[in-house]
Every structure is written in structure tokens, then in C-alpha cells.
């Protein structure tokens, strides 16, 4: 490989790159993606039990329920509206508190509890909402419980949805900058005939691909850090973070070269992307749904780059915690190198033959 030639190709790409819509996409995506995913879809993914309350008399029960952590409460104007929301599964359960409810409880009159649940609500959510509501009524009643309850908590808490969405955004940034940019750049050079011009010069296929890889790698590295910064997920271990992002960018830049080198035109590249991208993206779904069997995520190569980034950026892991995963990622990167070389040779032969 001739570094001087590769540098010349890279300089040309950097000069002409801003004209490409894909580069614009790679730069704009972290901002737009963060907004869309965190603001619009963040609440959509929240799996908390949802209780609607019609509070006709300013009951303390409604105040108590609103203060319970992990239960989403909303006030509804009318009982009919509440029933409709529960029926549509917009709420898991509904509670109607008539005027004078608290006074009746305090007077020991045992007022009727109008509580209904949606048919599609989970059994566990029904239980959570019902028993918590009863507990709130007991609080209003001022009863002294027959037992003291001590809660002993162990282990790590469940991450909020905003943190579990971070791998999705990071992989998007890595994929667009690391895979799309070099792949489309290579294919466009082939379609425009500039690749032929390059290859009849002293430049070899591997020089051109090296330049494309560096561009993808640098852009993916920078945009991943920007994405993490926008999501307030830079962690506390900068060295571990930079290393894991660098290895991630390297792996995806190599995949970008494979895509770009293997595709003879845009249509083929599109076919490649639409089929292989699902493999690349699969692991991030498992962060969003932690109840799914997590071992499945490890089948996919991108797990070994996204999980170290996730652990360092979100869970404050150190280099020692992720070194094994990074080793697996590096092995995958090394395995990709001969594949890139083969693709590079094949691409060169095809371009020269076509010329």
C-alpha cells in the first residue's frame, strides 16, 4: 500500500465529501436521531403501569397515587372518558374517587371502591395497581399496619429507557458514518468512472480502499462521540471509551469497504445493505427489551463493539471490564482484513476489465 497515494485520495474525498448527501446525513443524524428517539419514542417505550383517575372531590388518594414511583397516573375528566381509555388500552386501570370519598374512609363507612382494569393489561400490572391503590386508601385511613416492612435491595438498578436507547443511536451513527459513507463513496466512484481513472494511475485498489476506510473510521469515531455527548453518556473512563469507540469505528469501516467493494453498482449495494443491516442492528433491540433472552444478542458481530461502548458510556465500566469483549471485536476486525483484501483485488480486476 502506498500511503502517499492513499493520502491524496483521502484529501480529494475530504474536499468533495461535503457535496455528498450521505455525509450530510452522517453529520445531521446524531442530532435528529437523539431528538426523535429520546423525546418522541422515549415515552412510547416506557412500560410502566398506567392508572387513570377521576377525582371528583380532591381526594388524597389521587395525591398518594401520583407520588408512587414507577406508576404513570393521569387525571381524567369523566368516568366515560376513563372507561374509553381503559378499553383502548391507553390505560391499564381506572379509579373513580367520588366527592366525599376520603371523609367516608376516615369515618369508617367503607365506601365503594370503583376500580376497573383493561382486558389487555398484564396480570402483574393489575395486581400492582390494585394493591398500591388499596395501600393509598390505607394511608388516607391512617391505619397502623400490623407489620413493619423492611426492603433490602441488592445488585444494580434497571437502567432508564433513555439509557437503553443509547446503543441504538450509537450504532446508527457508526453505521451511517462508518459503513454508508465509504461504501457509497466507492460505488459512486465506480459508477462515475472515476475509479477507473484512479486505477489506471499509479494508485492501486488497496490505496483507494484505505483512503475510504480512514474517512469512514474518522467520521464514525467523531460522530459516535458526538452522539454519546448529546445523550449525556460519555461515562467516566475516557481512555476505555475512546478505545472501544475506535475499535467500533474500525470494524464498521471494514464492513463499509466490504459493502462498497463487493457492490458493482448502487442497486447491488442497496440489496447488500437491506439484507445485512438487519444483522448489524439486531443486538441493539435487546437493550431496549431487557426481558428478551440476552444471549441472542451475542450471536451478532456488532454486539462485541456496541456492548463495550454501552458498558463504558452508560455503566461507567473500566478497561478491565471490557477487555475480553474488545479482544473478540479485534479478532473480528482481523478476520475482516483478508476479506477486504480479496474484495479489493476483485474490484480492481472488474474495474480494469471494464475499462
Amino acid at each position, binding site marked *: 500500500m502506498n500511503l502517499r497515494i492513499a493520502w491524496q485520495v483521502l484529501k480529494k474525498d475530504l474536499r468533495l465529501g461535503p457535496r455528498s448527501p450521505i455525509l450530510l446525513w452522517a453529520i445531521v443524524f446524531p442530532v435528529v436521531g437523539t431528538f426523535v428517539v429520546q423525546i418522541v419514542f422515549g415515552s412510547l417505550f416506557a412500560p410502566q403501569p398506567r392508572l387513570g383517575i377521576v377525582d371528583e372531590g380532591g381526594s388524597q388518594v389521587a395525591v398518594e397515587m401520583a407520588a*408512587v*414511583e414507577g406508576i404513570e397516573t393521569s387525571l381524567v375528566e369523566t368516568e366515560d372518558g376513563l372507561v374509553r381509555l381503559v378499553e383502548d388500552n391507553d390505560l391499564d386501570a381506572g379509579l373513580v374517587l367520588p366527592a366525599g370519598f376520603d371523609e367516608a374512609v376516615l369515618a369508617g363507612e367503607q365506601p365503594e371502591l370503583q376500580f376497573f382494569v*383493561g382486558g389487555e393489561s398484564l396480570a402483574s400490572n393489575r395486581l400492582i395497581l390494585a394493591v398500591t391503590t388499596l395501600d393509598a386508601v390505607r394511608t388516607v385511613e391512617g391505619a397502623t399496619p*400490623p407489620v413493619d416492612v423492611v426492603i433490602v435491595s441488592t445488585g444494580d438498578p434497571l437502567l432508564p429507557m433513555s439509557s437503553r436507547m443509547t446503543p441504538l443511536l450509537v450504532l446508527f451513527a457508526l453505521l451511517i458514518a462508518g459503513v454508508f459513507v465509504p461504501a457509497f463513496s466507492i460505488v459512486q466512484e465506480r459508477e462515475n468512472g472515476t475509479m477507473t481513472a484512479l486505477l489506471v494511475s499509479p494508485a492501486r485498489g488497496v490505496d483507494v480502499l484505505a483512503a475510504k476506510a480512514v474517512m469512514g473510521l474518522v467520521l464514525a469515531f467523531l460522530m459516535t462521540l458526538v452522539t454519546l455527548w448529546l445523550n449525556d453518556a460519555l461515562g467516566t473512563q475516557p481512555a476505555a471509551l475512546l478505545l472501544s469507540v475506535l475499535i467500533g469505528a474500525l470494524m464498521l469501516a471494514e464492513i463499509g469497504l466490504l459493502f462498497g467493494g463487493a457492490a458493482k453498482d448502487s442497486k447491488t449495494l442497496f440489496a447488500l445493505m437491506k439484507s445485512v443491516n438487519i444483522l448489524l442492528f439486531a443486538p441493539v433491540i435487546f437493550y431496549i427489551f431487557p426481558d428478551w433472552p440476552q444471549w441472542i444478542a451475542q450471536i451478532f458481530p456488532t454486539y462485541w463493539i456496541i456492548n463495550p461502548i454501552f458498558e463504558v458510556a452508560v455503566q461507567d465500566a473500566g478497561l478491565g471490564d471490557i477487555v475480553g469483549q474488545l479482544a473478540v471485536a479485534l479478532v473480528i476486525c482481523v478476520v475482516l482484513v483478508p476479506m477486504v483484501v480479496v474484495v479489493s483485488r476483485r474490484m480492481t480486476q472488474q474495474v480494469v476489465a471494464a475499462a
Partner: protein
Amino acid sequence: MTISRRAAIVRAIVVKDLREFSRDRLWMVLTPLMLVFYVGILWLLPNTVDESIKVGVYARGLTGSFAEAFDSDAVSADAALEVVPFESPEALETAVVEGGEVEIDGQKHAVDIGISFPDELAASLAAGESATVTIYVDASVPAEVQTAMDAFVREATYAMAGVDLPVTQPEQELIVVGEDRVGAQITPQDRLTPLIAVMVLLVESMALAGLVAVEIQSRTAKAVVASPASVGDLLSAKGLTGTILAFTQAGLVLLLVGAFGHEPLLLLLALLIGSVMTAGFGMLAGSAGRDFMTTIFISMVFIIPMAVPAISALFPGAASAWVQVLPTYGFIETIVGVTAYGEGWADSAGYLLMSTVGCVIIFAAGWFILRRRVETL
């Protein structure tokens, strides 16, 4: 020109387009591969919903009354709680703190919540004295479950102490609104099926857009209409090609995931409407006649909003009003209704009508704009 002659021309263009796709060996290998990936991911997802909370309990002589302390027609402690009895408080604490599975009576259990009642609880309650109950929880247990278990223990001991509820329970104190789906919830597999089908359709709109864009760019569209084929024939052929590509692939995915078990004709009709609609999107995006990247960008402008109803169907609750006016909403709701809720023609008629109207508008827009583009070449 006779209708049969026109049909022959359209057929010839469709065959030419499909042959062009089939000559692309990579496309021929990768497209089925993509379908296999989609199906594989669907099959890997759980096909059951665990809607119970697994609780380890140490309660010498109290386990039965604990589980029965809070039960009713709608909130069934049996369905919501899976109680795993432990022989000692130490074993219970170890099981929760260390995690993993423990073997009890030949069965393996993993518990992340443990409730340890003191041995002297019954005597304390009888004597009116206070006792302490310890709940061990893994910190990953959601806050609302921890709160509920705390409240549950108090309520259970109120019941054991013979203290009445502070409220009256009507004859059926908790009313279930709508069809009660406890034990028959929509599984992740069922939830994701419509999204996969819609993604296949929308991605294929990009394939058609690419095809159309290339014909515009290279002006082969102009050459075709200079032959006996009219612009109408060309547009019909492109629409048909896009519909065939989208319909066969989405249909194959649904077939492979076993979605055709209920109302197959209804499902096929919904897919057909969706396929024609995506062909319309493909014609719209392709009519710009720009390079492949620009075509993909234009396609994304359609694809992202059109996929929103499918994403929204993943989550509980009715979709927002703005989602319901999107053209894809109707056929996605039909697929969700048939595959997840077992609905039939009567339930889906409104959605089908809605999606048909959307389909006609989108396809007509695609036809009109592409026609103008071809005529001005």
C-alpha cells in the same frame, strides 16, 4: 390498440424488469437471505408473555393464606404471582442476592424478589404486637413492583390479622373492561410481525424507486414510450413490478412465520393494498430521476413516517390521531387485527376501506407525477 395488445406490452415490460432483477446474482441471493433473517429474528423472539411476578417466600405455615390474602375475579393473585416456597430465610436471601437458579422440589427457579415472614408472625398478630417482614429485591426490579410488594405484604397481614378493608368491594369489585386477555396476551412475535411485513413492503418501494430513477436518468423510459408502448403501459408495468416485488416478499415472510392461519384471504388483500401503495411511493420517489443516493433520500422521506403506525402497533394503546391519518395505518391495523387479535372481515372493513382510499391517492399521485416526468424527458 386492443386491451390484449396493451396487456402484452405491459407484461413484456414487467418481465424485462423482473429479469433485470433476476440477473443480478447478488440481489437474488441477498433478497431471500434478508427474508430468512427477518423470519429468523421473529422466531427467536418469545412467543409467550410472562405476566406474573415470581416471588420467593419464606412463611412457615403461612404460604397458602399469603397467596389467598388478596384475590378477586379480575386481579387474580394466582395469575399475577408465582410463589416459590423456601425452606429457610437464609436460602431465600441467598437466592435473591446471588441470583441464578435454585432447585426446589426438583424444579429450577430464579427469583429476584423474596419475602421473609418471621416465624412468630401468627403469634404476634394474634397478640396485637408488631412484627418485621423483610423483602429482598434485586435492584433491577422496577420501582413499582417493589412498592407493590411492600403494599402487598401489609395488605396480606391486615387480612391475616382479620382487619377489614377500608373500602367496600362491589359484587365484582374489579371490573374488566374489554376482552380479558390474562393468559392470552399479545406476544412479542405477534407484535413484531406487522412491523416486519411493513418494512419489507417499504424497503421494496426503494427498489422500485431505484429502477424508475435509472430509467429516467438513462432515458430508457423515453425509448420505451417511443416504441408501441404508451406512457400508460410503462407506468402500469412499473406499478405492477413494484407490487409483485413487495407483495411476494411480504407474503412469503408472513407465510414463513405462520401468520396465514386465520383469515388468509383478508391478510392477502391487506398485503395487496399495502403493496400497491408502496409501488406508488416507489414511483413518486423514482420520478425525481436522480442518482441512487438521492433516490434513497427521497424514499426515506416517505418510509420513515409510513413506518410509524407499525412502530406504534408495538406498544399498548390507541395510536395518536396524527398516526391514524397516515395512509399505512389502515392496512397495518388490519394485519395487527388478523394476526394478533384474530379479527375477521367485519372488524377490518373500516381499516380496509381507509387503506384502499390511501392506496388510491398515493398510487394516483405516483402515476401522475411519473407520467409528467416521462412526458417531459
